[in-house]
């Protein structure tokens, strides 16, 4: 993974004479005191983070916490007061006007909360806007715009006008407009916040699907934790202009940096946040299946560990089956020289590591034996029993 965007010590202070406000910031005054003393608003203070290539990076925070200001400093719709933003190592804050325009045409595009479509242009013309601005031929504009519309499922509406579309469709046009120039970075400022909940989840899925087809670096602004958890690979939480925590959704939920961050989780369904891999229990006895190892020695190991169930894996840690002391004893009685598969328990279910806990819950309730968690290559990564599940849920409720 390479770092696509690096934000270093970024500040935005609105109003004239930011130096004085900056001085007060250094002395440790907060946003409200500085506004009272100088009339300057601190939009963003001392922000540093980096965004990896291909990841969906969500910036979350309450209203007024500086999210929009932050994202607009990435393409300099708002001039940063201090600090640097590097795109592939190049400092955006030092770019000349023409370099900046070229960068916006090639590398970054943006999706807006209220869509910002042009009502006098057709859907296809709207989608082609970025190409039109950078001087592509009419034929090329239409071709690329249609391809982008195809990607968001709006090709049949290419010649409609925006006022003939529903909100969700309008934002698809906004998305198509952003995709048409084939940027490496998408900036999305509350792109789905104006949509009703159902359409909103649909659009989130759409974005995730587009990411799977062709992964871009996405900086997504949201004030909604569910949305952030759903689409974010990592989340940055902003409070009063500062970034107070950065981490994966799991890290943030399980280890909130302060009360403000924790306050976001009231009412959040943690079973959506954790995946099976996060809570898999790795303490069970594993027996590697290899020639010369017989049923009896496996029975011995299980009894040594005071367990009742063992996990049989191959040399590459790939999961083979579960055995219990009882099933091993039965198999030995039938044919003392037999092989492990004779002793495998029937009805054991495996789940992928990225399955969400809410899905695991149902399976665990139905299954007689612990669920076996495997990664995408079939390697064993732990088991989930009903008791581990209950323990986890109980722990996160208290958090």
């Amino acid at each position, binding site marked *: 993974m390479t770092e696509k965007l690096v934000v270093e010590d970024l500040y935005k202070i609105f109003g004239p004479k930011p130096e004085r406000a900056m001085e007060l910031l250094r002395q440790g005054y907060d946003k409200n005191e500085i506004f009272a003393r100088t009339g300057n608003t601190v939009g963003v203070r001392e922000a540093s983070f980096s965004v990896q290539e291909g990841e969906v990076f969500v910036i979350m925070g309450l209203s007024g916490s500086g999210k929009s200001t932050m994202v*607009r400093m990435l*393409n300099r*719709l708002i001039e940063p007061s201090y600090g640097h933003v590097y795109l592939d190592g190049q400092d955006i804050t030092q770019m000349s006007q023409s370099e900046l*325009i*070229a*960068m*916006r*045409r090639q590398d*970054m*595009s*943006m999706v*807006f*909360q*209220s869509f*910002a479509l*042009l*009502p*006098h*242009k*057709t859907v*296809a*013309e709207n989608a082609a*806007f*970025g190409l*039109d*601005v*950078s001087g592509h031929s*009419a*034929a090329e504009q*239409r071709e690329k715009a249609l391809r982008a519309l195809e990607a968001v499922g709006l090709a049949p509406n290419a*010649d409609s*006008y925006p*006022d003939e579309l529903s909100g969700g469709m309008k934002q698809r046009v906004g998305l198509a*407009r952003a995709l048409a*120039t084939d940027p490496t970075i998408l*900036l999305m400022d509350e792109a789905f916040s104006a949509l009703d909940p159902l359409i909103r989840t649909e659009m989130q899925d759409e974005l995730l699907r587009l990411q799977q087809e062709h992964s871009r670096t996405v900086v997504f602004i949201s004030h909604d934790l569910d949305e952030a958890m759903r689409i974010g690979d990592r989340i940055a939480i902003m409070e009063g202009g500062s970034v107070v925590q950065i981490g994966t959704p799991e890290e943030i939920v399980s280890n909130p940096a302060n009360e403000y961050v924790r306050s976001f989780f009231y009412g959040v369904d943690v079973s959506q946040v954790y995946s099976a891999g996060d809570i898999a229990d790795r303490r069970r006895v594993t027996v590697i299946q290899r020639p010369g190892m017989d049923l009896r020695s496996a029975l011995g190991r299980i009894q040594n560990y005071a367990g009742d169930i063992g996990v049989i894996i191959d040399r590459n840690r790939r999961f083979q089956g579960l055995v219990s002391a009882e099933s091993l004893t039965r198999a030995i009685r039938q044919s003392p020289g037999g092989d492990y598969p004779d002793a495998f328990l029937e009805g054991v279910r495996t789940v992928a590591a990225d399955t969400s806990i809410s899905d695991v819950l149902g399976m665990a309730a139905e299954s007689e034996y612990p669920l076996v968690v495997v990664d995408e290559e079939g390697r064993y990564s732990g088991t989930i029993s009903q008791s581990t599940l209950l323990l986890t849920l109980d722990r996160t409720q208290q958090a």
Partner: protein
Amino acid sequence: MQEEGSEQQALGPLDQLRSWVNEQVLERITIGDWIESLVDWISANLEPLLVGIEATIRALVDVTEAALLYPLWITAVFVILGAWLKLGRKAGGIALVAAAAVFSLGFFSEAAKALLWFSPPWMLALLVVVAGLWRVGWRFALFAAVAVGLIFSMELWPETIRTLSLVVASSIAALIIGLPIGVAMSRSNRVEMVVRPILDLMQTMPPFVYLIPAAIFFGLGTVPGAIATLIFAMPPAVRLTNLGIRQVSQEHVEAGQAFGCTPRQLLFKIQLPLAAPSIMQGINQTIMLALSMVVIASMIGAGGLGATVLTGIQRLQVGLGFEGGLAVVFLAILLDRISQSFGQRRRGQGSGWGLLQWFFRGRQAGDKSAA
């Protein structure tokens, strides 16, 4: 406490102060004299400038009048331009050839020559009715036919054309000057701060006042009338252009910038098209103000329907005055409805926002048929 005591003594000094202010300040401020000497200075020293302005305005008025007298030429130009802009270069070429073919009929037949090259006066009347039918609807077209018929029966058609050409010419000049000022105003608060009071002044000053300097600089006749008209009619176009551009939503502007618009592209691709309804409203108001001023301008010999009304007043001929007035009203209604129709979003016509948008929207249709 001390001040109370000193106030009684100060009566003397206050009187002194008053007479000093009178002598030294108030009597020295002689705005009327200053304006007069300014006007004298301009007519003495800026002769070439005045001549240039006069020539430009005269040419504009003459061309407009010719276009209205022989309207088929200008119609052909619009058709060719429209075909080229909307349907592509090929269609423009075809329209050009077709128009040339039609007009060349004049070489072969005297009747065609008279009709096409030197249209009879009713040709314009016909076009007005057709424009009413196209832009507004059949009811309005019917009204237009009746109104035009009445003007003919009152034998005021030549005066109407004269008034119309003055209105059109001064509106065009007002827009050429006013729209860029409006754009400049929308882009800088400082410019707005300077221009706004000037606009207020221009609008509240009684219109007759413009006639005096205009007559001094340019003598009597059409040109000073047109100049007084364009000054009087300009403010709404400036104001509404400024307002329209400032009202374009922040997100639209940001969208333009985020996709890499240069400032010029931002203006032409985002701000002007989105401000178009407001700008068209300003243009409509400018046209209406120009019409009302043109009537007044007849006092310095601009001619047209205003002169008819003026004659009616001077000779106390109520009938003549009323006929002139009625023709002005008809002209006003026709101009208003037709010019407004270009600023409105019309149902059943997609999202066409009239002429401006029609031009801005470009040639998508042509691309489609080519694909």
